[in-house]
């Protein structure tokens, strides 16, 4: 069977200035490959600077890779740095939802923009779609007239989720989206994510430091170190018997 998302030999490097005229190549990701099935969650863990966030950006289309391919449902969406312009199948939620929302737009306008730029729906369908999406993440229809500063932290996370979900994506990338939340709000958000996964078969890519959360909600686990995959497997297997030194170090503290 064809996996939903297939990443093959993805590499990325940045140019750094070494001295006045020479430049140095600094490779952030080396030869990353993994698969993600529909309705499953893949967790990526690793220390800071191991390339987790870069990988998330590449998957969501916020950056381009130097080489390697990304397949979605069998279709190639990124091939050696050339990205298919559609950004609606893989969406991303950022760490700081307050900072990633435009303070000058109401929630309704913001969601409408997403639809206007990415779909060819007419006005009535768009309004209906916004209504349905807000209900899906547990907000009221009236909330679309609110500005971001009128929401609490947990509600903003729901708004960010609504923005990701409004284009009916197949994969949602959560880059540290849960770590800055309070415990009870985090529990609510996780419940919401799990409910959506069960109902619609959404897949998640979860990037976090929170190991017990990883163990609870993820199916597969990727451990990164210096841009390389040092361990990849089913979450339960990796937690039972971590093979590499990095993984053991991460689990021990």
């Amino acid at each position, binding site marked *: 069977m064809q996996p939903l998302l297939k990443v093959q030999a993805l590499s990325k490097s940045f140019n750094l200035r070494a001295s006045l005229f020479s430049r140095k190549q600094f490779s952030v990701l080396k030869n990353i490959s993994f698969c993600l099935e529909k309705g499953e969650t893949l967790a990526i863990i690793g220390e*800071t600077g191991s390339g987790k966030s870069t990988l998330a950006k590449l998957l969501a289309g916020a950056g381009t890779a130097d080489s390697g391919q990304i397949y979605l449902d069998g279709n190639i969406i990124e091939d050696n740095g050339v990205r298919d312009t559609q950004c609606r199948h893989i969406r991303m939620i950022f760490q700081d939802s307050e900072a990633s929302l435009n303070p000058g737009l109401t929630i309704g306008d913001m969601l409408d923009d997403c639809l206007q730029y990415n779909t060819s729906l007419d006005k009535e369908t768009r309004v209906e779609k916004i209504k349905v999406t807000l209900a899906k993440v547990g907000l009221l229809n009236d909330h679309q007239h609110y500005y971001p500063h009128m929401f609490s932290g*947990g509600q903003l996370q729901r708004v960010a989720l609504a923005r990701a979900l409004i284009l009916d994506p197949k994969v949602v990338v959560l880059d540290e989206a849960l770590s800055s939340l309070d415990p009870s709000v985090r*529990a609510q958000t996780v*419940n919401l994510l799990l409910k959506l996964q069960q109902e619609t078969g959404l897949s998640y890519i979860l990037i976090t*430091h929170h190991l017990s959360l990883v163990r609870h909600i993820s199916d597969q686990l990727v451990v990164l170190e210096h841009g390389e995959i040092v361990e990849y497997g089913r979450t339960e297997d990796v937690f039972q018997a971590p093979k590499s030194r990095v993984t053991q170090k991460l689990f021990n503290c």
Partner: protein
Amino acid sequence: MQLLDIRNLTIELRTSDTVIRAVDRVSLSLKEGEVHALVGESGSGKSLIAKAIVGVLNERWHITADRMHWRGVDLMRLSSQQRRKIVGQDIAMIYQDPSRCLDPTAKIFDQIAETLPAVHSSGFFLKRNRERKDRVKALIHKVGIKDHEKVLTSYPHELSEGVCQKVMIAMAIARTPKLLIADEPTTALESTTRAQVFRLLKSLNQLKNMSILMISHELEEIVDWSHGIHVLYCGQMVEAGPTQRIFSHPRHPYTQALLKSLPDYEHGLAHKEPFYALKGTIPTLQHLPIGCRLGPRCPQAQKACVVTPPSTKQHGHSYACHFPLIKAMK
């Protein structure tokens, strides 16, 4: 000996039309050499309490307390100079937002050197300078920064959040204070450095007999090495007591919800099964419910909950609830 003893601390914000009570009659006491944790959601007034102890809240906040004793001296009755002298000598605080709390116009070396206690060394100024440099270097190695040359000569904006946080910790422990107030000291750090910082604080607690008041919203970080936990909800102390007792016998529904939202402590939770979570969100300070502030979200709420519950104390474990949970957690 009682190091810090606070009884009925109330912090109010006076606006033009109303008085907002951000912290409502919180009591807290700390013995020498103990580690206590203050847990609660953001906006529950944890940082306010810490700032009230150190005395850095500005004029708009109105602080009243029946008693706020620091080793037998009432801090509320002292003049600001006297208070500053005591607090500066014995209490240190790690602030929440490290990159914003450091001085952006001074290099890290100067900022750390400023906090060093004055030592009367009989030497020429060159020798004294060298000694000072060595002491700063030793401090910064202690908190786990390796390339001291680069860090000491840079400004705060050139460093990452994690390094700033470590610098902040170095500044706080420079005087080896009697009480260290750590306001979310490890939020910007990844798990390995976090463990390192906790090891450092733990060793300071054991070797130098330093008391620590930890403020955090991650329960699992502090459970292993804190002696007592105080749980706050919306400015009210809902439960306080020895750590092990709170974890095994939570009496307040909010504490129970907090514990149940941790995958580690909720055994028997199947893979991908939803967590136990209270409905609704934490109310804003302008719209606080009367009586028990958890009331509208509480699964056990009854008519009596519109009256603020008194604090009940049993074997050093106090809780404020009309209908406490009797059953022990599995």
